[in-house]
Structures are given as structure tokens and as C-alpha cells.
């Protein structure tokens, strides 16, 4: 079997992340110590989630413009993978918070925003499950999905920056961009984002192909 180039690229980039992420030198910072390496694993989950959920949004808009069921399937599967990455992001974030901030969860704008965002996407799946008629479900889900992404931007990007926050990159708190002066972390961080995102797209594609086969089977 021939594997698509982007699937191979995804595997290579993630293997690179696993090796370089543990072996490359990182800035020595108090409190963080070696946990700064979580940048390659925890933060990339969120970046990938935002990109994959954008794919979902894009296909929802496409669906509303031409009403092809294909777009509805892609939007749904992309939202699934995005949510998986989001839950992994919350879990890993909680572990990181426990050993740096001292608590699994703190009442922080960024953390609560992330939780609310995931609830929005959970509601998207529940909404889909509640509607039986295919066209109607696709249309309502597409509109709701657009609304969800707007809420994601508000809760993950806008609100945390308007208040004080412990989370790096928010409320006057510098992100890791301010720390990695030698740029070695960027050398791992950016490939890691691309690698994890491509892996997510791969998982999404498998879901889409499965759903299409299922549809074909039921239509025959």
C-alpha cells in the first residue's frame, strides 16, 4: 500500500518531536524545570485542535453554500478529532498545572474558557445525535458549528487576554515565545504543531471514509 506523503510526513515529524523534544537543550527556568518540554506536547494539542476545528468550521460553511452531505461528514469528523485533542489538552494541562502551579485546576480565565469551549463542542455532538433527519441535522449542526467556533475564539483567545491569568501568553503574562531566546525550542515546537495536526487530519480522514462507506451501504 502506498501511504500519502503527508501521512509519512506526519509520522516523521512526530518521531522528530519525540526525539528532539526530549534530547534538545531547553532554557533552565525556575518552577518549570524540565516540564518546559510540555510545550511540545501539551501546547501543540491546542494548536492542532484550533486548526482542525477550523477545518470543521470551513466545511460547515461549505455545506451551507452547496448542501453536499460530504461537507457535513467532514465537519462532523473534524469536530470529533478536535474534541479528542481538546480533552487531551485539558488533561495534560491539569497534570502540568499540578506540578507547577500546585493545583489540578485553578479558577483561571484560560482554563475555564477551555472547559467551556469543550462543552460547546460536546453540545454539538449531542445536537447531532438528537436530530434524525439527515438534511435537517446537517443544516442545524453546520449553523451551530459556526457559532461554536466564534465562541472558541472568544473563550480561548479574547477573554483570557482581558483579565489576569496564570497561563502563559495571557493577561500580561509572557508566552513561551519570550523565553526561548536561542530559538532551539521553536525548532521543535513548529514541526510538532504540523506533525500533530497532520496526524489529526489522518484520523479525521479515516473517520470520513468510514462514514462515507456506511452511507453508501445504507443507500444501496
Amino acid at each position, binding site marked *: *500500500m*502506498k*501511504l500519502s*506523503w503527508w*501521512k*509519512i510526513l506526519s*509520522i*516523521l515529524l*512526530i*518521531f*522528530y518531536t*519525540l*526525539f*528532539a523534544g*526530549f*534530547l*534538545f*537543550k*531547553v532554557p*533552565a*527556568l*525556575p518552577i518549570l*524545570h*524540565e516540564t518546559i518540554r510540555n510545550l511540545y506536547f501539551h501546547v501543540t494539542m491546542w494548536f492542532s485542535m484550533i486548526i482542525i476545528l477550523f477545518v470543521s468550521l470551513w466545511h460547515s460553511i461549505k455545506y451551507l453554500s452547496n448542501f453536499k452531505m460530504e461537507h457535513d461528514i467532514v465537519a462532523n469528523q473534524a469536530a470529533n478529532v478536535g474534541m479528542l485533542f481538546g480533552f487531551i489538552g485539558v488533561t495534560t494541562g491539569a497534570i502540568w498545572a499540578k506540578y507547577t502551579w500546585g493545583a489540578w485546576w485553578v479558577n483561571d480565565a484560560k482554563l475555564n474558557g477551555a472547559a467551556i469551549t469543550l462543552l460547546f463542542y460536546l453540545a454539538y455532538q449531542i445536537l447531532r445525535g438528537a436530530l434524525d433527519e439527515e438534511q435537517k441535522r446537517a443544516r442545524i449542526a453546520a449553523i451551530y458549528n459556526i457559532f461554536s467556533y466564534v465562541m472558541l475564539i472568544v473563550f480561548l483567545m479574547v477573554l483570557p487576554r482581558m483579565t489576569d491569568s496564570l497561563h502563559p501568553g495571557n493577561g500580561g503574562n509572557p508566552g513561551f515565545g519570550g523565553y526561548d531566546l536561542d530559538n532551539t525550542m521553536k525548532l521543535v515546537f513548529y514541526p510538532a504543531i504540523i506533525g500533530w495536526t497532520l496526524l489529526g487530519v*489522518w*484520523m479525521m480522514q*479515516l473517520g470520513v*471514509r*468510514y462514514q462515507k*462507506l456506511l452511507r*453508501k*451501504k445504507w443507500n444501496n
Partner: protein
Amino acid sequence: MSFKKILLVFVVVFASLFASAQQMTSSSTSVEMADGLYQSGKIYIVVIVIAIVFSGIVLYLIRLDKKISKLEKESTN
């Protein structure tokens, strides 16, 4: 790309990473890092374990991909 080529790329990437990691020296700052772990070389064990875990996930994905491709072929015929 054939499997052998991919394997070759892996070996090259891993070898280059290994070489660059060897050149690293521990920092002289007072912040405690896992310097001992790196000096003893045992961090490689962790990296290898994680690489094996991820290899398993990738093999699973590739097998699933194959199975779906086969089903797609069958359903078009």
C-alpha cells in the same frame, strides 16, 4: 515511498539527533534540571519507550487505513 526508504530516513534522522544531543553540555545555572538523567544517558531509554508506544499507534492507524482502503475498493466494484 517504499518502506525501506522511510526506514532509512528514520535511521538518518535518529543518528543526527543522537549526534547533536551528544554535543550538548549541561547548563551552569542554579536552576535544577534533569542534568543527572541526561548525563547518565538513561533519558534515551524513555525516548525509546515513547517511540515504541507511538510506533504502535502508527501501525494501528496504517492497518486501519489499509482495511478501509480495501473496503472502498470492494464497494466500488
